[in-house]
C-alpha cells in the first residue's frame, strides 16, 4: 500500500492510494467523513425579554427567526478546533463540562444589522473562532437585539452532521482510456481540455492515464469505441474541509484513527478456545 499526495491546500486535498481494495478504501473514506472529532455548538442559551445597550436603549429579544432556527444555524458554523480538547464523556470533569472539553461563545448584537459568524465571541481560547467569518446567522430589524451564550463541545460526524469536518469526500478507481483517433472524431477536444501530465499520444491513439481533473472524459465512459481500463486496487481520493482543521491534519488523523479502531475491534474479539 502506498499513498501519494497529488494536490494539497489548506482546505482541499487529493491523493492516491494504491494496492488496496474497495473495503479498505471505503473505511478510509468513512473515517475522513465522519470520524474526525471537532468542535461544534451544542447548547445555546437565549436571553429572553428586554435587552439594553450601553446608553440604556431598550431592545426586544424577539428575532425574525425562531430560536430553534438560530440555534441550528449556530451549530452548523464551523469552528477552528484544538484537537487536544477532550470529549466530554471522556473528560476529567466526568461530563460536567469544563474548559478542557467545552468552549463557550457569546453573541451580543443590537439591530438593525446582519449577525454573522464573526459576532460569535469566544469566551476562552481566542484562537477557536469560526473558520469563516461571513456566515450570516440572522438579520436583526430595528429595535431587535440578540444576546446569546453558546457552548461548543467535541463530537464526531457520525453523531450529527454539524461535527462533520469534511465535505465532498470521495474516491474513484484509477482509470485509463485509450482513444483511437480514427474512432473518436473530436479527440482534439479531449486532448485540449485535459492536463498534459495524463496524456501520452502517438499517431493512432491517445492514452489518458488518469481522468481526475478532466470531467470531459466521463463522456467516453459509455462509448463502446473507447478502450477503458479500470483498476480497483488504486484509488484517487479527494475531500475538502470546512476550515476547522487543515486538510493534511485530517488525513493524518484519519490514518491514525483507522488502525486504532481496528485494534479496538481486535481487542474485543473473543477467540474461541
Amino acid at each position, binding site marked *: 500500500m502506498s499513498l501519494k499526495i497529488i494536490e494539497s491546500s489548506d482546505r482541499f486535498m487529493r491523493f492516491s492510494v494504491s494496492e488496496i481494495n*474497495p*473495503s479498505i*478504501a*471505503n*473505511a478510509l*473514506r*468513512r473515517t475522513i*467523513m*465522519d470520524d474526525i472529532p471537532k468542535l461544534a455548538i451544542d447548547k445555546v442559551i*437565549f436571553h*429572553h425579554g428586554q435587552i439594553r445597550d450601553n446608553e440604556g436603549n431598550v431592545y426586544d429579544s424577539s428575532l425574525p427567526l*425562531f*430560536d*430553534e*432556527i438560530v440555534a*441550528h444555524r449556530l451549530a*452548523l458554523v464551523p469552528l477552528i478546533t484544538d484537537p487536544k480538547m477532550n470529549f466530554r464523556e471522556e473528560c476529567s470533569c466526568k461530563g460536567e463540562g469544563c474548559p478542557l472539553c467545552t468552549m463557550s461563545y457569546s453573541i451580543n448584537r443590537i439591530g438593525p444589522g446582519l449577525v454573522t459568524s464573526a459576532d460569535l465571541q469566544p469566551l476562552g481560547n481566542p484562537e477557536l473562532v469560526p473558520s469563516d467569518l461571513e456566515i450570516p446567522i440572522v438579520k436583526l430589524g430595528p429595535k431587535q437585539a440578540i444576546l446569546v451564550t453558546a457552548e461548543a463541545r467535541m463530537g464526531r*460526524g*457520525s453523531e*450529527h*452532521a*454539524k461535527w*462533520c469536518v469534511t*465535505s*465532498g*469526500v*470521495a*474516491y*474513484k*478507481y484509477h482509470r485509463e482510456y485509450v482513444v483511437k483517433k480514427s474512432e473518436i472524431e473530436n479527440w482534439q477536444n479531449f486532448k485540449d481540455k485535459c492536463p498534459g501530465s495524463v496524456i501520452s499520444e502517438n499517431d493512432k491513439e491517445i492514452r489518458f492515464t488518469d481522468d481526475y481533473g478532466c*470531467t*470531459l472524459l*466521463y*463522456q467516453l*465512459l*459509455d462509448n463502446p469505441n473507447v478502450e477503458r481500463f*479500470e483498476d*480497483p486496487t488504486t484509488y484517487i481520493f*479527494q*475531500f475538502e474541509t470546512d476550515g476547522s482543521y487543515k486538510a493534511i491534519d485530517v488525513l493524518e488523523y484519519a490514518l491514525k484513527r483507522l488502525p486504532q479502531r481496528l485494534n479496538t475491534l481486535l481487542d474485543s474479539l473473543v477467540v474461541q478456545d
Partner: protein
Amino acid sequence: MKELVDYFFKNESVVSHQIDSYNNFVATLGNPNSVMQQIVDETKVSDEDLPGTIVLDPSKVGGRDIKVYFGRTRDNGKFVGEQTIWVERPEIKEASGASNQIVPNEARLRDLNYMAPIFLKVRVVEDGQEKDSESIKIGEVPVMVRSKICTLYGNNLDQYIEKNNGPTNASRKEKLQYVGEDPDDSGGYFIIGGSERVIVSLEDLAPNKILVEYEEKYETRVEVAKVFSQKSGFRAMTALERGNDGVINVSVPSVAGSIPLVILMKALGMSKDIDVHNSIASLPQIEPIIYANIEESKSPKVFPPNGVNTTEDAITYLEKRFAAGQAKEFREKKISQMLDRSLLPHLGDGVEDRLKKAIYLGRMARSLLELHVGVRKEDDKDHLANKRIKLAGDLLDELFRNAFQSIMKDLKYQLERTYNRKKGIRLKPAVRQDLLTQKMLHAMATGNWIGGRTGVSQLLDRVSNVSTLSHLRRVISPLTRSQPHFEARDLHPTQWGRICPNETPEGQNCGLVKNAALIINVTEGIDPEEVMAFLRSLKVEEVKGENAETGRVYLNGDLVGYYDDPEALTREIREERRNGNLSSEVNVRYDPSTREVIINCDRGRLRRPLLVTRNGDTVITDRMLKELEEGEVGIEDLLKKGAVEYLDAEEEENVFIAVYAYNIPERCPKCSEFLSRNSVRWINPGQGAENPIILECGHCHANFEVERLLTDKHTHVEIDPSLILGVVASIIPYPEHNSSPRITMAAAMTKQSIGLSSTNFRIRSDTRGHVLHYLQVPLVRTRVMDFIKYEKRPGGQNFVVAILSYQGYNIQDALVFNRASVERGLGRSTFFRTYSAEERRYPGGQEDKFEIPSHDVLGARSEEYYKNLDESGIIFPESYVEGSDVLVGKTSPPRFLEEGAEKLGPQRRRESSVTMRPNEKGYVDNVILTVSESNSRVLKIRVRSERIPELGDKFASRHGQKGVIGALVPQDDMPFTEEGVIPDLLINPHAIPSRMTVGHLLEMIGGKIAAQQGRIIDGTIFGGEPEKSLREGLVKSGFRYSSTEVMYDGITGEKFKADIFTGVIYYQKLHHMVAGKFHARSRGPVQILTRQPTEGRSRQGGLRFGEMERDTLIAHGAAMVIKDRLLDQSDGTIIYVCGNPSCGHIAILDRRKGTLRCPVCGNTGNIYPVETSYAFKLMRDELSSMGVMMRLILGDLK
C-alpha cells in the same frame, strides 16, 4: 405575446374576477347602478305595492295615507332618481359605543366580522306631503378584502393611516405592512368571526334559454324542451314534453301535473287556432303534429262538454282542474297566479305579458318539434355556452335580496305597529338592523345559502399560497356528487382556455369541482336595451308573427327580430364591437343550420381573450404592444381597436383560431442556440401578411425570418397556449411531457405543500399553519410563477436526487433521505397551532376570569401545572409546553347557580383552563391579548413546534410523484459520485416507467444544469427550454448526455455496475406528517354513555377492533382473545342480578354495608355477579324506559 400576458397580470390581480364582481355588487357613492341599488329598486314589500315603495295600511295608521319610498324614482322604466343605498367603510362598533374603521388583520385577530354599514335614504310622503328624506343605517354587509370599500383599497388605506397617525409618507407596501397585511395578498375573500371565508363561484345552467334534449321516461325516449326562467332572484323551470301520442304537454312550476300546450296558449290569450299554428310552425314536417295538437284540444271527448276553443274555455278548463270547487274569486286568483307568476317569470308578471308567454311557448314547441323531426340536434348541456358562472357578487345578490326584502317587510310591520297619532311614524327605531346583518352573517358563517344550498362559503385554504389562489378561483358545479353525471365530469372542448384541464380532485368530486384557467373574464352583463337600440339602428325587423323565411335574431335567448342576411348582420355586429361602437361585453354567434343570430349580453358568461387576425395577420401591432408595455394604453384600448377580444363559448363556435402564428426553427440561424417559444419574440406583428414574420432570438438578439402559419382563413390567434392551465397546474415544469393523471395529482399535491403561505404569518392567528424553514425558489421554473409571485412565496426545496433502489428502503414509493442533509436543515418546517380563550360573560353578571386557579376552585390542578403562567394566569412566551400543560389559567362561575347552595355547600368556581393538546408539544410563540366585540378579553396563544423530517413524513415532486420517508441513512452509507456528491434523496427507479412522468426526469436534468451554470431553467408548458438544449447543457457542464453518473456504494465501497441517473429537482414537503398522526393507547378515556373507549387520536381514543378483525379471530377459534378485545379491554362490567326466578332485575350493591339487595323483590340472598358488556346493560335500561322489562334469568353452565 409575452407583453400582453405580462400586462394582464401586472394590472389585474389573479382573483380580479371575484373582486370585480363584488365591486359591481356593492353600492358605493358614485356607483348609482350597483346591483344592490337595483335590488332596492325592485323590492316589493307586498304584492300590491309598487317596487321600491311601502304603503302603510290606512286602517292601522289612523286613516292617513302614508307612503315610504326607498327605491329610486323612475321615469319610463329608466331610473332618474338619486341613489338611495350606499355602503360605507368597514367598521366595528365597540362596546363603548364608539365606531372605528378597521383593517382586515384587526378583524382576524379580534374574531370580528369585517363588515361595513349600509345606509338607505328613505322619503316619506304623508297625505301627499313630502317630508324630509332620512338616511338610515339598515344593517351591515360583509366586505370583500381588497374590494373598493375595503380599508386596504387605494386611497382608503392612506386615509385610514392618516386618521390613525400611521406613517403617511411610507410606500404602499410599507403601509400595508403597517396595518399587518401581506402586501402581496390577493384579497377576494371575507372575514367572518375572525376566519377568512371564500364565496366559491358556482357553475349553473344558463337561465332563460330553451334547451331541448331527449329524456328517458318509463323506458321510452321523449323529447323535452326546458327553460330555467329567472327573473330577479326568482327561478322556475318550465318544461315542454312531447308524449308518445304526439300531444305536447307543459309542466308549469309549482303546479301539479301538466297542461296541454294548445290549451295553455289559448288560456294565455292566443285564442285563434291560426295564431297558435303560426307561432309554432316552421317546417312542413311538423305541421301534422301541430294540427293533431289543435284537434286534440277541440275534442269534446277529451275536454267535455265542447272541447277547448276559446280563451274562456281554456281558463274554465284550468280553473276546473286546479281550483275545482272553490269560489270564483279564488279560482281566478289561483289561475292568474299560475299564468303570471309561475309560468316563465322572466317574460313579466302582468296580464299584459301573457301573449308574450304564448309566443314563447310556441317557440319552445317549435324547437321541440324540430328536435323530433331531426332538424335540430339535442342541446349540449355541458357546453359552456349553456352555462353561467355565479361569482361572489351574484351569490351575495341572492342573499341581500332576500334579507332586504324581509327587513323592508318588517319595517312596514313595525311602522304600522308603532304608529302614534301624535308623533306620526318614526323611521329610525323601526328599522331592525340586526335582521339584515344576521341573515347575511349567518349565511356567510355557515355556507348555508338561501334555496338550501350548502357549502357556498368555505373556509379559505391557507396551507400554501397557491392553494389560497386556487381556492379563490374555484368553480363548482351544483350537480350532486352521488350521481354519476359522466358527461358533466368530462373535459369539454369549450373549457379550453377557460377552465384548467388538469386541476380537479380525484374521486367523487372529479370534474365537478373545477378551477379557472389563467386569464378569464366573467361578464358583468349590460342593459339589453343598449343592444336593442343598436339592432334597431341596423334595421332589424321587429317580431310580428312567425316568419320562417328569414334569419332570426335572438338576444339573451329572446327572439327580438328578423334580418334577411343574418350572416352579414353577425359580421356587422362584430365589426361595430371591434370599432368600439358596441360594448365589448356583447358576443354574437351565427348558426348557419338554423339561420339564427344569437346575441348575448347577460351576466356570468365565462370568456377568454384572443388576438384578432385580419387577412392573415394580427390586428395588434408591435407599436400597440410597446405602448401597452409602457402603460400608455390599456386592454380596454386594445378592445376598442379590435386587436384583442373576449370570446364566450357561444361565439367561439364561429371562429377559426390559430394556436401559433408561426413555427420556430430548432436552433437560431444566427447564433445556433436552441430556440423555444419563450426565447423568441415576434417583432413585426400586424405589419401585413405580405411581409414575412421576423423573430428576434432571445440569446443573440439577431433577427431572422420564419414561415407564417397564419392564413386569411384564421379569424383569431391564441395569445399564448400556456394560458389554458390554471394557477396550480402552471407551477409544474414540462407538464406536456407527463401523463395527464399525474398532472392532476401533482396539482392536488402542490396545494398541500407547505412553504410560505403569507408573509404576515407571525402576526396571524390561524388555528393551524406551517412554514418551511429554508425556502428555495425552484431551479426549473415556469413563467406563470412571475404572475402569481410564486418566487416570493415558494413551497419547497431543490433536492439532489439519484434514481436507484437502496436496501429495499425505497420500495413502493418510499423515499430514502440522507440523514446529514436533514441535519443540515433539509425539509425542516415549523407547525403552529393557536389556542384561544375568552373571558366569557354569563347571564347574571358572572364571568370567566384569567387567573391561576386557587385550591378551592373545583377541579383545580396541582401547582406544578401552572408553573409557566405569570400572575395574571397567562403563559410566558418561549416557554416549553407539552402534554396537557396549561396555557391560560381560567376559572368559570359555578354551573347551576340556583340549585340549593345549602345542600351542596358553598358554590365553587370551576377550573376551565385551556391546555395543550395531549399529543403535541412546542414553544409558546406568541401571546395576543385583545378584546372581543362584546368587550370581553380574548387571548390567543400560538404554540410552535419544529418539524424535522422523520420516518413517514410525506414529500412530493411537482409531477405527482409522492412518497413517504422510508429511511434516514447516514451520509457515509449513501452512494456517492466521484466528485463526492452525496444525494439528498434516493427514489426508486420503478416509480418512473409505468407512470410516464418524463417531466420529472427533464426537471432533474434542468435542475442539474441550473445548479451548475447558475441560471434558472424555463420549463413552462409548450415554451420551455427544449430537451436537446438541456442535454447539450449537461455536456457543457461536464456531465454526460444521459445525465447518469458513476456511483459507488457507500456501504461496501464498490462501484455500482450501472450508472445512476442523478439530478436536482424541486421537492415539496406536504403537510401530512407523522408528528401529527401517530397514535397509540394502552389505557385511556372512555365514553360516558357506553363506557367504551373513545374514538380518534384527539381524544386519545382506542384503535377499533372491527368486524373483520373479529372474523379473523373467529376463524382461528381464538375465543379468549375475542373476549379480551371485545369485553375486558372495552366496556366489560360486572352487574349484580337478582337470582329470584320470578324477578331477574338488577340488584344493588350497598358499598357501605357491603350487602346486596334487589330493589324490586327485596331479595338479599340469592344475588349473583354477572359479567357483561356495559352496552348490554345500557340496552336493558333503555328498554325499561320504554316499558319493556328485560328479566335476566340465571342458570348454571351445563
